[in-house]
């Protein structure tokens, strides 16, 4: 967990984790009610299956499936979503492959289909409707229609709550979502990216809206963007701090965000995954950027 969830959510998560822990006890995987063995490829797809209570039916994941870590640690990893191997995928013995958009190469997918394993591709538009459609699609594929509808209602209600909170924002802040800060090159999320999508959900203007997709940005463009807050990915143990991010003399150090020490760090998949946790992620982001506006 890389953010501060509200207590109520904690309880729900704990219950879910407990239930899954039971389901994943040794000896039980094959005895599940549905006999499917699912290869879950794509972070959000895997997360949805987990939320639908199908974690024990996942027999393989890809490198982008990293949540929930404790459930997925034991699952065979078939590699990067876009560079799959047919034999590797088949070696997990799946009877269904649910993959996020962009899985491939297509030769490999057709070999898997030839082996009699259906491969379903789930679309991933970075919008609330996209998340709900994805939940319903995964649920339908896994034969968990009822659970998926319930989850979609729950997540949909969270999105609705989010939009009510967004309506209270009078003066939108501008934020820059920074994907990486390697060697002084700042890679930001521009228009049409998942970063743009989550900022919109949190009621924040994208300071990098002039850029399309994820691109490196120049120092001058950072100054021109004048973000009120900087959002950084937190991957692995080393969390970025305001001191390292807003080093005096760098372009980021001269932004309004630096003056206010407005740095938000969030886990990459949580923030940009567009799965069932997206309303939570958007609310965390909103709370971090508008601390006076949003409480609880």
């Amino acid at each position, binding site marked *: 967990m890389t953010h501060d969830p509200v207590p109520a959510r904690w309880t729900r998560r704990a219950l879910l984790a407990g239930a899954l822990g039971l389901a994943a006890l040794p000896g039980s995987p094959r005895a599940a009610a549905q006999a499917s063995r699912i290869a879950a490829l794509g972070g959000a797809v895997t997360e949805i299956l987990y939320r639908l209570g199908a974690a024990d039916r996942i027999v393989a994941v890809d*490198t982008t499936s990293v949540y929930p870590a404790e459930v997925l640690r034991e699952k065979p*990893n078939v590699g*990067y979503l876009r560079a799959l*191997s047919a034999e590797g995928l088949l070696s997990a013995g799946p009877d269904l492959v649910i993959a996020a958009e962009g899985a491939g190469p297509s030769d490999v997918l057709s070999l898997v289909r030839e082996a009699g394993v259906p491969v379903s591709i789930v679309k991933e538009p970075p919008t609330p409707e996209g998340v709900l459609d994805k939940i319903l699609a995964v649920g339908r594929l896994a034969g968990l229609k009822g659970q998926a509808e319930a989850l979609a209602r729950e997540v949909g209600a969270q999105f609705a709550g989010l939009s009510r909170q967004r309506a209270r924002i009078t003066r939108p802040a501008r934020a820059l979502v920074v994907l990486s800060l390697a060697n002084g090159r700042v890679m930001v999320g521009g228009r049409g990216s998942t970063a743009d999508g989550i900022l919109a959900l949190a009621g924040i203007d994208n300071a990098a809206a002039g850029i399309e997709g994820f691109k490196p940005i120049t120092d001058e463009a950072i100054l021109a963007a004048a973000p009120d807050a900087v959002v950084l990915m937190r991957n692995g143990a080393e969390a970025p701090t305001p001191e390292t991010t807003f080093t005096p003399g760098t372009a980021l150090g001269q932004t309004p965000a630096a003056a206010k020490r407005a740095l938000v760090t969030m886990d990459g998949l949580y923030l940009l995954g567009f799965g069932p946790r997206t309303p939570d992620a958007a609310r965390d982001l909103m709370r971090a950027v508008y601390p006076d506006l949003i409480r609880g």
Partner: protein
Amino acid sequence: MGEAPGRVRPAAARRRGALVLAGLAALVIAVALLSVGVGAIRIAPSRILDLLVRGGSDPALARDALVILNIRLPRTLLGFLVGAGLAVSGALMQGLFRNPLADPALVGVSAGAGLAAAVVIVLGDRLLQALGLPGPLPYAVLPAAAFLGGLAATLGLSLVATRAGRTSVATMLLAGIALGALTGAMTGLLVYASDDRQLRDLTFWSLGSLGGASWAKVAATAPAILPVLVAVPFLGRGLNALVLGEAEAFHLGIPVERLKRTAILLVAVAVGASVAAAGVIGFIGLVVPHALRLLIGPEHRRLLPASALLGGALLVLADVAARLVVAPAELPIGIVTALVGAPVFLWLLLAGTRGIDV
């Protein structure tokens, strides 16, 4: 041994050459068996034998049959074709340019193919949209574009280097470096314009993989590479004479211009086809001919077929490693060839009693 490798007496070299060729043929067979026999899915050797003999009509063996007949077999064949094509191209280039550093990249094939591939990966869908055609781009467009891009680059270089019917290999070498820089910059521009996914596609493509091997790919690659492998030994005598210099070779009765043009065309076709089938795989073309020169000497009539055998065997072996090390995922094969090939090559250089000559 009293004699340095690469400087053996002709009769001894011939005997040794025959021995090495026989050894390499055995190596190819052993590696092929290994490549068909191992993988992420465990299949007992007796079952594999069963499948190969009876052709996999037994429904109980359906999945194993698919793995062996439609995944491992085409993959092994494609690996052999690509490895052989790259190694032979390297030997041809080093002979033609009389330069130990020469590799297929010098005639611009890899650069042209790489640029064409980057254009397809980054701009393909946008071009399709602009033309009002439905997406996504058919998968075969990428290899086809890479092949044509490689050929076009080589033809362009040949034109630049040919004056009054005479192709200057020195001009071609220098122009090749310039073209490499130019295509590198244009590819960089495309990398800048690409989004996250396209960037990852580009990276994976530039590291090479036999992962998408299928019978269709073998069928598309074999007609380009096999004729090159067959034709190449006939160039051996000419390349041997070329070692003395172009004028000397001409006075020995070698049609030098025709030889150069043939060799360049063969390399463009073989490398273009292998890049199209498996992406960019480095090192095989450089290392295999050098290693063999140390073993059997620089005589091209022995060197070229031996390069084909060793190149094919090494690439298939590298592929076995690539799919076993991180199974059920797999490594890009270019990483394996460089990671294993570079230290082995250094060791060969250090173990040899003298430096390398072409």
